[in-house]
């Protein structure tokens, strides 16, 4: 996957391998969401291009699903209805099987018939992740998916996402402004600058999962990113 420059983004040149978990990290408003929207085909770049498996991206595609913050679930559908939303081309029985599988995978058993307003923020986010996974995409784009959750739920959701990623082996592009989050999740962290965003550094997170958040290597990598962004790790 590679693309060139746009107005809010400059000289972004990035290759992502199949099955890789990449975090795009940058300050708020730096253009990282724009970047993800371009990659997903929602926004056309003013210059440069995005290619996936040699094929140029011009429009959104069910092989690559975008996961919004929890507000992306359809409020008029139940959890089950949401998860099965993209499965309209499948025969009824296959659809039912897939829904059951993903309800189970994201731990929503017992809430199949609940409407989103009856679910907590974390559960809504599970519905959205399940809805994305149900169509069996190659790639997931996650745009600060846990940004609206409380910090405890956020930690749980990160662990869940890693478990799902390891089970399903999708390529994941994950946008966040949370340094800790990126170091906990990613194989590689792409550190963006402020606007116009360019890539400051790409950090390999060479720690096996499950990651020990108090290991010296974790702290070292985390602090190096803090330093890169120009923050002293002190309050």
């Amino acid at each position, binding site marked *: 996957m590679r693309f060139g420059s746009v107005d809010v983004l400059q000289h972004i040149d990035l290759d992502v391998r199949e099955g890789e978990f990449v975090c795009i990290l940058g300050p708020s408003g730096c253009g990282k969401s724009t970047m993800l929207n371009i990659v997903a085909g929602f926004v056309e770049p003013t210059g440069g291009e995005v290619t996936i498996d040699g094929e140029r991206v011009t429009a959104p595609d069910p092989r690559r699903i975008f996961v919004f913050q929890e507000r992306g679930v359809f409020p*008029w559908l139940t959890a089950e209805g949401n998860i099965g939303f993209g499965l309209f081309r499948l025969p009824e029985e296959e659809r039912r099987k897939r829904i059951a599988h993903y309800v189970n995978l994201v731990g929503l058993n017992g809430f199949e018939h609940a409407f989103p307003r009856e679910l907590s923020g974390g559960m809504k986010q599970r519905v959205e992740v399940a809805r994305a996974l149900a169509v069996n995409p190659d790639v997931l784009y996650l745009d600060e998916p846990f940004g609206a959750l409380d910090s405890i739920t956020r930690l749980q959701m990160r662990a869940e996402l890693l478990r799902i990623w390891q089970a399903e082996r999708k390529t994941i592009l994950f946008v966040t402004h949370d340094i800790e989050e990126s170091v906990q999740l990613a194989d590689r962290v792409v550190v963006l600058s402020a606007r116009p965003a360019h890539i400051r550094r790409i950090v390999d997170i060479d720690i096996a999962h499950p990651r020990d958040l108090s290991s010296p290597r974790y702290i070292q990598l985390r602090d190096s990113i803090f330093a890169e962004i120009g923050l002293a790790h002190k309050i």
Partner: protein
Amino acid sequence: MQNEELRKDGGFLHSSFCVLRSAFNSVGLPLLVGIIAVILWHAAVRFSRTEIFPSPLDVARAIGQLADQSLLWRYIGDSLVRVACGYTLAVLLGVPLGILLGWYPDAGRAVNPLIQILRPISPLAWMPLAVIWFGVSNAAPIFLIFLASFFPIVVAAAHGVRTVPPMFLQAGQNFGLTAPQLMVRVVVPAVLSRIAIGLRVAFGVAWVVLVASEMIAVDSGLGYLIIDARNAGKRYDLVVAGMLIIGVLGLILDLLLRRAESWAGERR
């Protein structure tokens, strides 16, 4: 220890007091205000020695008299049929038109000035034309009720479409929906849960217009009851009785729509 028990006891008393108070606030207080209004009404009639305006007792008697006649029930039935026809027609035409105007911004921009000119015209201004076109028949008030509710519904539906979160549309596109599929599976359900309030407002206007149109365009219904009571014998007790019946029926219908609205809201 004792203190704690005291506090518990106090808590129990406090909570039952809260229940009582909330019951009083939701039922008792409105009832009290109603009773005070009736007393003030009675006193005002008494002290002003008016010959025209009836006292609450006169009106109660008039309502009893009306309820004894089958005429009242026929009039209520006629009025309900008219408002149901006009309003349903407005919903069936207004919601799809509004959705299209919201969905195609160019069409919206082209049609919007026309709507904005027609909308502020009171539906009652159409009355002379309605009478010429439809004569003394159900069609005239139905037409006026349709006009009254059509424009608010179109505007609400168009606005509903324009405020559908872009995320929903993006998600729909992402899952490979074609434009018609996107319309049916995303836009319409998103709009329906957003325009419930607009539908209720439109019904309120329809109910107001119903009574006025029945005063002129037909010879039955609640509006006609009022104008007929005055013309036939200056029976102002019947006039006020008719007014009260209209108010109560309007309230009941509004409550029903609220019910429907919260049901739709549950799907949000």
